[in-house]
C-alpha cells in the first residue's frame, strides 16, 4: 500500500512550523500577574478571579494567523511556544530562565526584555503565592520542595495542575458556546443555589464570553489578512454547532488550546475522534465535490496545531519527562456498544494521516479488541511498521473489565478513550487526574536494605535488621510496610496540593467541558465531575522483581550469600564482587517466561495496587495504580544505589512495565508472555510496554502479518497495551558500543531474526550500514 502524501500547501505550512524556533510564551505569566496584582486587595472568589485572569489574558495577548493555515489559533504569542503557568509550577520552571536558550537539547528562545520583566515583576510576586507554596505551612513547604527537587521516591505532577482529562468535544461541536451558555443560564435559574455555586456558574459564563471574544479577534485578523475561508469559519465558530469537519476541528482546537492555557498543557486528550466526527464526515462525503484528500490534509493541519504546544520544563524536570511531551491523546478504533468492530471510514482516513504525516503530537492510540476486524488491525500494524512508534495499541478486552473494577459504569465502558500517555478513562464525565504522581517502587528495597534510609555509598557497616529477615515472605511484608509508609507521605503532600488547587486555582473553562460540573455547580478541581479518580504510577517493577528473585535464589534457597553481603554489594556498586555479579546475572530475570520471577513481578505489582487502592483523593475519587514511567525510570535510577538484580548505581530502571533492557533473552513472545502474566485487571490506570524491532524485521506484508499475530497473541493472553518501536541505526550503533544494555535487540539478518549483540562486529557494522542506506 502506498503511503499517503500531504498536499504541497500542507507541507509548506509544516515546513514553516518546523523551522520556527520554540520560544518561551511569557505573555500569559505577565497578564496573569497583572490581573492578580490588581485584585490582590479585594475579596474576589477564586473562581471569578481565575476566570477574570483568563479573560484578561485572552483580551490582551498577541494573536497571529500564519500563511496557508486552515485552522487558526496559537497556544502562545509564538508559533511554537512553551507557556509559563506561573501561578502553578511554572514559576519553579523559571529556575532555568538563564539556561533555556543555551541548553543543548530542547533549547527555548527567550525574547529580549522578557527575562527582565519576568525577574522584576513576575517571579517575585509568585514566590509565596503559587499553588505549591500555598499548599503547605512553612516547614512542610521546605520538606515538599526538597522531596520534589530530590525526586528519588516520587514526583507529584499535580503540582503543575491536574489537566489530564477528555473534554466533551462531542457535545461541544453539537451545541457550540451558545449551547454552553444556555446550559449555564438554565442552571442559574435554580433558586436553591448558594453563593459559591452562583459565583462558580458566573465564572463559567465569563469564560464562555472570553472564548467568543478571543475567536472574534481571530476573525477580525482574518478579515484584515483577506482570508475569506477563515472568516467564513469564524462567523459560526465557536458560537454555533459545527456544520462541517473544518468548523468542528477549529472549534475543538480553540478549546484545546484554551484549556491548556487555563489548566496546564499536559494530557488534554481528544477522545474517539473517528467516532464522534463520523456523522460530519459522512455528511461531507455525500456531497458531489467530496475529496477524501482534503479531509486528510485538514487533519494534517490539525496535527500541526497540536504540535505547536510544548511544555516549559526545566532541566531538572526534563530528566523525568524528556522529549517535550504534552500528551494530547487521540484515540481511534475499538469496539462499539455490542462488542463489534467500531472502526469506520474515518478511522482509515486518520490511519493514512498517521502513516504519511509524522508529527510530534498527537499521541495516537489505537484500540483493539478480539472483535476488531483483521482489515483494521492489519492496517494499524502496517502503519506501525512504517516507524515512528504510532499508534500505540490498547486491548479493549482487558481495559474495559479493569475499568469496571474501578467502578466505571459497565454500560458506558465500551466508549472509553485514552488520556495522555496510556491512561484509560470515560469521556464526557470523568476527571481522573490520571497522572497525579509517579512513584519509585524499586527504591523501596534499597530503603529496606538501608534500614529505613537510602544506602550510603561505600557503607558496609553491620546492618543488624537484616539478620531478622529470614524468609522471602518476611522480606515481602517489610517491603510492603515500607512502601505503604512512603505512599502515605506522598498522599499527605498530594492532598495538600489538591486542596490548594481547588481553593486558589479552580479551572472553570476546563470544567465546562466535563459532565457534572455545571450540574453540580462545582469546579472539576473541587470534585464537580460525575466520576473522579487519581492515578499513581509505579516505576521499577521489573528491577524489583529481579532483585527479589536474586535474593530468593542466592540468600534463601541456595544460602550462598547473606542479605548483609548483598547490601554491601549494593553499597559498593558490586566493585570487586565479580563472582557475585556473575551469579546474580545467572538468576532468571523478568521477561523470559520464567514462572518464579514472573510471579514475583506480579506480587510486587499487586503489592503496589494494595498500597494505592485503599486511598481516596480530595474529590472523593479512588486512587488507582498505573505502571508507566515517562522517563522517570532514568531520573529515579540516577538517584539509586546498585540493586541486588545487578543493576548498577545510577543506571536507569526498567521502562514502564517492560523487562530490564537486555535481560529478556528469549525473544518477544517470551517477553510478552511474562508481561501478560501480570494481573492487568488490577491495573486500572494503564500500563506502558515498549517493544523494539529493527525495521527490517517487520517490513513488508509478512512483517505486518507477524506483528498482527504477535499483538493478537499477546492481547489474547491478557496483555493490556504495547507500543512498537521500529529501531533506527543510531540505536544499533549504541548497541555496538554497549552490548549488555541491548541484549534483546532483535534484528533481521538476510533471512531471519537474530540478536544484534550475537553478531560479529563486522556483521553489526553491515547491518548499521544497511539500515542507514534504507533510511
Amino acid at each position: 500500500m502506498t503511503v499517503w502524501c500531504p498536499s504541497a500547501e500542507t507541507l509548506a505550512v509544516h515546513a514553516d512550523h518546523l523551522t520556527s524556533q520554540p520560544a518561551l510564551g511569557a505573555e500569559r505569566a505577565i497578564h496573569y500577574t497583572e490581573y492578580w496584582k490588581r485584585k490582590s486587595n479585594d475579596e474576589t472568589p477564586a473562581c471569578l478571579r481565575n476566570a477574570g485572569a483568563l479573560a484578561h489574558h485572552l483580551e490582551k495577548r498577541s494573536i497571529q494567523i500564519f500563511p496557508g493555515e486552515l485552522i487558526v489559533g496559537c497556544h502562545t504569542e509564538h508559533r511554537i511556544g512553551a507557556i509559563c503557568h506561573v501561578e502553578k509550577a511554572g514559576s519553579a520552571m523559571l529556575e532555568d530562565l538563564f539556561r533555556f536558550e543555551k541548553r543543548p537539547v530542547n533549547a527555548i528562545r527567550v525574547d529580549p526584555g522578557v527575562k527582565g520583566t519576568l525577574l522584576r515583576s513576575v517571579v517575585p510576586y509568585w514566590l509565596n503565592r503559587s499553588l505549591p507554596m500555598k499548599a503547605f505551612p512553612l516547614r512542610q513547604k521546605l520538606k515538599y520542595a526538597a522531596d520534589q527537587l530530590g525526586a528519588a521516591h516520587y514526583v507529584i505532577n499535580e503540582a503543575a495542575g491536574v489537566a489530564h482529562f477528555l473534554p466533551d468535544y462531542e457535545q461541544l461541536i453539537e451545541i457550540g458556546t451558545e449551547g454552553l451558555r444556555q446550559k449555564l443560564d438554565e442552571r442559574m435559574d435554580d433558586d436553591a443555589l448558594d453563593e459559591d455555586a452562583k459565583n462558580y456558574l458566573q465564572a463559567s459564563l465569563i469564560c464562555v464570553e472570553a472564548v467568543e471574544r478571543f475567536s472574534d479577534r481571530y476573525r477580525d485578523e482574518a478579515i484584515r489578512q483577506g482570508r475569506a475561508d477563515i472568516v467564513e469559519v469564524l462567523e459560526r465558530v465557536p458560537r454555533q454547532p459545527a456544520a462541517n469537519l473544518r468548523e468542528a476541528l477549529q472549534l475543538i482546537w480553540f478549546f484545546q488550546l484554551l484549556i491548556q492555557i487555563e489548566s496546564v498543557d499536559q494530557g488534554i486528550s481528544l477522545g474517539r475522534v473517528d467516532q464522534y466526527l463520523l456523522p460530519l464526515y459522512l455528511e461531507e462525503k455525500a456531497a458531489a465535490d467530496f475529496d477524501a484528500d482534503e479531509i486528510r490534509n485538514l487533519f494534517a493541519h490539525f496535527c500541526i496545531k497540536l504540535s505547536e504546544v510544548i511544555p516549559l520544563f526545566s532541566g531538572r524536570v526534563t530528566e523525568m519527562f524528556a522529549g517535550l511531551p504534552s500528551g494530547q491523546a487521540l484515540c481511534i478504533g475499538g469496539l462499539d456498544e455490542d462488542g463489534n468492530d467500531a472502526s469506520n471510514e474515518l478511522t482509515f482516513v486518520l490511519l493514512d494521516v498517521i502513516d504519511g504525516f509524522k508529527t510530534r503530537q498527537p499521541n495516537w492510540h489505537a484500540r483493539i479488541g478480539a472483535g476488531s476486524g483483521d482489515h483494521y488491525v492489519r492496517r494499524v500494524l502496517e502503519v506501525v511498521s512504517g516507524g515512528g512508534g504510532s499508534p500505540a495499541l490498547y486491548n479493549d478486552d482487558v481495559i474495559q473489565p479493569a475499568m469496571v473494577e474501578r467502578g466505571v459504569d459497565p454500560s458506558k465502558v465500551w466508549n472509553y478513550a485514552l488520556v495522555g500517555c496510556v491512561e484509560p478513562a470515560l469521556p464526557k464525565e470523568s476527571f481522573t487526574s490520571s497522572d497525579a504522581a509517579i512513584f519509585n517502587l524499586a527504591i523501596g528495597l534499597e530503603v529496606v536494605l538501608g534500614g529505613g534510609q537510602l544506602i550510603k555509598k561505600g557503607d558496609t557497616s553491620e546492618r543488624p535488621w537484616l539478620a531478622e529477615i529470614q524468609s522471602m515472605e518476611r522480606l515481602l511484608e517489610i517491603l510492603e510496610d515500607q512502601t505503604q509508609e512512603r505512599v502515605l507521605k506522598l498522599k499527605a503532600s498530594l492532598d495538600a496540593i489538591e486542596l490548594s488547587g481547588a481553593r486558589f486555582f479552580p479551572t472553570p473553562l476546563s470544567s465546562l467541558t466535563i459532565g457534572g460540573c455545571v450540574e453540580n455547580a462545582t469546579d472539576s478541581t473541587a470534585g464537580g465531575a460525575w466520576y473522579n479518580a487519581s492515578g499513581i504510577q509505579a516505576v521499577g517493577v521489573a528491577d524489583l522483581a529481579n532483585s527479589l528473585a536474586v535474593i530468593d535464589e542466592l540468600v534463601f534457597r541456595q544460602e550462598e550469600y547473606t542479605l548483609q553481603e548483598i547490601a554491601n554489594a549494593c553499597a559498593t556498586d558490586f566493585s570487586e564482587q565479580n563472582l557475585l555479579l556473575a551469579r546474580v546475572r545467572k538468576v532468571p530475570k523478568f521477561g523470559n517466561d520464567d514462572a518464579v520471577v514472573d510471579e514475583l513481578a506480579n506480587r510486587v505489582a499487586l503489592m503496589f495496587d494494595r498500597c494505592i487502592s485503599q486511598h481516596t483523593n480530595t474529590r472523593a475519587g479512588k486512587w488507582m495504580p498505573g505502571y508507566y514511567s515517562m522517563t522517570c525510570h532514568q531520573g529515579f535510577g540516577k538517584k539509586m544505589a546498585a540493586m541486588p538484580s545487578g543493576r548498577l548505581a545510577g543506571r536507569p530502571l526498567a521502562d514502564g512495565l517492560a523487562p530490564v533492557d537486555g535481560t529478556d533473552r528469549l525473544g518477544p513472545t517470551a517477553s510478552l508472555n511474562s508481561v501478560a502474566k501480570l494481573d492487568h485487571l488490577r491495573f486500572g490506570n494503564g500500563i506502558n510496554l515498549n517493544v523494539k524491532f529493527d525495521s527490517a524485521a517487520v517490513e513488508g506484508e509478512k512483517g505486518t502479518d507477524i506483528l498482527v499475530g504477535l499483538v493478537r497473541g499477546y492481547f489474547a493472553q491478557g496483555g493490556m497495551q504495547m507500543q512498537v518501536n521500529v529501531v533506527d541505526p543510531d540505536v544499533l550503533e549504541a548497541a555496538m558500543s554497549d552490548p549488555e544494555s541491548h541484549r534483546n535487540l532483535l534484528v533481521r539478518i538476510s533471512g531471519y531474526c537474530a540478536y544484534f549483540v550475537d553478531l560479529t562486529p563486522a556483521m553489526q557494522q553491515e547491518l548499521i550500514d544497511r539500515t542507514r542506506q534504507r533510511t
Partner: protein
Amino acid sequence: MEFTAPIFDIQRFSTHDGPGIRSLVFLKGCALHCPWCQNPESQDVRPLVGFYRDRCQESGACVEVCEDDAVRLDGFRIDHQRCSRCWLCVDACAHDALRLVGETLTPEELMARVMKDLPYYETSGGGVTFTGGEPTVHIEFLERVLLLCAEAKVHTNIETSGTFQWSRSRAALELLDLIYFDLKILDPDGHRRHLGAGFENIIENANKLVSLGLPVEFRMPVVSGYTDTDDNIGAVVGLLRRLDQRFIHLLEYHNMGEAKIDVIAGNQPKLGLGRYPSDRWGSVCGAFEDAGIEVLHDAR
C-alpha cells in the same frame, strides 16, 4: 517405551522457517558433515559442553569441580573424550562461559516448552519447526512429539536432508503439515566427498514423498563452489521437473555458523567465503527460472 532426544536450542519467535510465528526446535545429531553447516554443534548426537571464550574469567571453578580431569585452563577448556557429561562444570561457571549444548528432553517436556507460544501460533498461522542436526535421527521421539502437536492442533514443519530410512520414518512424516526437503549435491561421488556420507536414498525419499502427495517443498543452500556448479544446478532442475515441482526455496550462504565451530572445538574447516556474490546469485536464479521453476529467496 519412553523416548528422549537431545535438544540444543528452542528458538522462539522464528519467522522464516515456515508460515507465521514459529518455535524452532534444534535436535542434535546428523549423518552428514556439510562443510557449510550453520550449526556445527548439532552434528554430534551427544550433548556436550560448549565453551564461550570471550566470557571466561579464568576463575578455575570448572577445573575444581571436574572429576574426569577433562577441564583445563590452557587451550580449549573441555576435553570431550574424557568428559563423562556430568555437567558440574556448567553449573559451576558463574560467567556463562561453559554452556550445555544439548538438553535431553522427553516428548512431553519438549511440548511443555513449545506450547508456551501456542497463542502466537494460533494468531499468526505459525507453529513448530523441527530442525537440527537432522531431526529424523530421532524418528521415534519425533513421531511422538508430532502426535502431541496434532492433538494440540499445532502446525508442524521439518527441515530435513532427506537421509531418513523410509520404512521407519513414514508414519512420522505423514503427521507433518509441511516438509522442507534440502537438496544439496546430487552427484553421488561429490555428495560422499563433500558431505561425508553416502547419497543412497535421498532421491528415492523425495520421490516417495511427492508421489504420496505429502506437503513437501524443496530447498537448496547456495554455496560457492559446492552446490552452485552448473552441473549440480542442472541436476537439481532435472529432479524438480521430474517431480513436477513449480518452485524452490534458495538459501543464500552466510558464514555465521563458523564462530560456533570454536565453541565446540569442532574440526569443521572454515570455508572463508564471504557473502554470496550478487551477480552470481542472479545467474543461479536465472537457471531455475529459465526452466520454469520459481525461486523463493529464503536467505539464511
